[in-house]
């Protein structure tokens, strides 16, 4: 008996194995890789193995021990993997600007003398006498670091290891993060304002009208995002159809700026994300027994009061899940703001893309991704808490 059960269980596991494997390879593994990339910091350790070991023992007091200095020289002389060296240089240069020139000067000087001859680093460049270069090197050595995570919210550690607010031009992330949430919230609100009445209309309509209303929502969903964005690109221009119509109707004398600003981004995103609002609300409303509104009427409720006391509260679960869906998807928008927005309308995804593709700073890209993921998961937690309240459908 137990053998039969065990075999049944085994074959059940075998059936879900492909799915589990797929999830592991294409979902769990990239996620874990991303998470670890954000907190690991191995490039300096790889390029400067002996110096890294020596730096780990350093007590961070100047002058640096001779062993550390000589280990660095030895590593510089032994550089073979140019790519790994380049990564390490970029990493150090991002910590202290000027590190790149310092290292390249040191490298050429170290190689110009005899391979075994001792080298006086401070003689090559007086900057080696400054603590910040050595501290930055030592900071880059540990395998795990929180600097990407801190930098993602414009924080960093000072020389004493305390968390401080980042300064100057690098402190844009917080602004962009707030802007991202602001745009997503605005788009969600607009989608709700348009989507709720629309879904109600579609749910109460019958026959071809319902088909047409649903098709109008679904059709854009079946078209490529890029095509839809490009269409808005054409419509919203100064000489575009919308401005042309507005001027033709004497509503405005000169074209309204609809593109390369926040307005264009919000209009296009609202249009693109509307199906994600309409469909959940529609499915909830369709499930509400029709005669609840009749019952409300027979009990003395005029249509508007019946709506506010019966239909609206019963549609709230759909509105809630639609809002969550729209908000989550909007948080990650990249193409639409890139094409229709101005410089001040870029969202966090474009910053991630900048780090990932522009500067190959995978650590930063991953750290920002983690914050986006955290925000999304927190929202989902709130949502499931809200939708847990007893909200049963009627018989």
């Amino acid at each position, binding site marked *: 008996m137990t053998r039969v059960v065990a075999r049944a269980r085994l074959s059940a596991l075998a059936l879900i194995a492909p799915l589990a494997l797929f999830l592991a390879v294409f979902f769990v593994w990239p996620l874990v890789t991303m998470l670890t990339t954000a907190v690991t910091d191995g490039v300096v350790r790889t390029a400067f193995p002996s110096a890294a070991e020596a730096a780990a023992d350093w007590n961070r007091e100047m002058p640096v021990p001779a062993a550390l200095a000589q280990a660095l020289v030895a590593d510089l002389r032994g550089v073979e993997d140019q790519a790994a060296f380049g990564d390490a240089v970029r990493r150090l240069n991002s910590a202290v600007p000027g590190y790149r020139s310092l290292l390249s000067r040191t490298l050429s000087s170290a190689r110009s003398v005899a391979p075994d001859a001792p080298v006086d680093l401070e003689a090559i460049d007086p900057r080696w006498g400054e603590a910040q270069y050595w501290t930055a090197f030592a900071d880059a050595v540990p395998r795990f670091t929180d600097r990407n995570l801190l930098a993602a919210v414009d924080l960093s550690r000072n020389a004493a290891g305390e968390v401080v607010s980042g300064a100057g031009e690098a402190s844009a992330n917080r602004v962009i993060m707030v802007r991202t949430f602001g745009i997503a919230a605005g788009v969600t609100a607009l989608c709700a304002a348009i989507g709720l009445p629309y879904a109600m209309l579609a749910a109460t309509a019958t026959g071809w009208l319902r088909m047409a209303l649903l098709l109008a929502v679904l059709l854009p969903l079946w078209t490529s995002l890029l095509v839809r964005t490009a269409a808005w690109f054409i419509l919203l221009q100064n000489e575009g159809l919308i401005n042309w119509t507005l001027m033709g109707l004497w509503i405005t004398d000169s074209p309204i700026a609809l593109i390369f600003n926040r307005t264009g981004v919000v209009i296009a995103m609202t249009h693109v994300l509307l199906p994600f609002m309409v469909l959940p609300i529609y499915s909830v409303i369709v499930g509400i*027994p029709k*005669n*609840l509104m*009749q*019952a*409300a*009427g*027979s*009990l*003395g*409720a*005029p*249509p508007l*009061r*019946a709506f506010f*006391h*019966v239909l609206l*509260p*019963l549609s709230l679960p759909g509105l809630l899940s639609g809002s969550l869906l729209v908000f989550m998807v909007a948080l990650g928008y990249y193409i639409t703001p890139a094409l229709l927005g101005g410089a001040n309308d870029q969202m966090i995804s474009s910053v991630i893309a900048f780090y990932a593709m522009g500067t190959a700073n995978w650590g930063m890209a991953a750290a920002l991704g983690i914050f986006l993921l955290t925000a999304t998961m927190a929202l989902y937690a709130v949502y499931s808490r809200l939708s847990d309240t*007893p*909200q*049963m*459908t*009627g*018989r």
Partner: protein
Amino acid sequence: MMRSVTRSMTPYIQFKQVSKSFGSVRVVEHLDFDIAHGEFVSLLGPSGSGKTTILMMLAGFEAPSSGTIHVAERRIDQLPPHKRDMGVVFQNFALFPHRSVAENVAFPLQMRGMDRGKIAPKVARALEMVKLGHLGERRPAQLSGGQQQRVALARALVFEPEVVLMDEPLGALDKQLREHMQLELRDLHRTLGLTVIFVTHDQSEALTMSDRVAVFNNGRVEQIGTPQQIYDAPQTRFVAEFVGETNLIEAQIDTVDQGGARVQAGGLAFLVDEAGGRGPGEAINLSLRPERIRLGDDASVGNALPAQIADWVYQGDHVRVHLQAGELMLVAKLDRRSREWPVGSAVIASFEPDDCRVVPA
């Protein structure tokens, strides 16, 4: 049972030449129907007979295509539902799932702008009336079907409407509960003096509860009358067949005199009370209720037809016997204490001349 006859002198609800079509489909045709104040009237018919549409027109969810509806001599067919002051109980109860039981019952009072302080005692009393005083805080989904039914009833009665409309309100309940609720509804009707319009497709329900029954078929009234009239004196073949079980016998009239007529059917001859205004040689349809047929050995009583037992079915509270009498196949319902005949044995099936009713073809 005869109350309604005296009451119907002053009609309270009046349908005047009411018709309703959906597209090209006629659902109700030229309905004239008066209902007295305080009457319990059942609309009985198969699905698609138009009975629910009539109720929906009375409640205001549908508008008549032509004709008018009046309540207390006021025309109401153009009023929206919320101005009609009628309690409606729906088949699926239509309770608001997001409101507690007490909030459901409070809804009509809230809509009438009543003070919170006055609502609470009224709700409590209404729930007490349907014996659910202790469940006010529950959600409808946490109640059983019978309890939901009572909540729907309390909600339809709490604002003290003169008229209560019920659309197959017991259809979703199991048999035992349904019979129990039938009696409770009848009690409520009596104690509150309500006018109740009750839609059902269950003929025994209609007979049990109503002062009068209106039988519908294909959008037309087949017969309106007391349960006794409907059951014992069906005026159409449809009513005879739809209400209760019956043996329909196609017979030919032999002779007619004042006392009744002598007819022939299936090679047998017997007496009936009336000839339905037909003369000798003409064909008539007769309805003979199965419980009117008795079985015995004595061939000298009333109409005595020699028959053979074709089948004998024990059904708990009664016995169903299929008889072959001449060329007629008859069904008889017998008391379970009656004598048992083996299948195939010869018996005498007898009935009184007034047990046979003439029904128009």
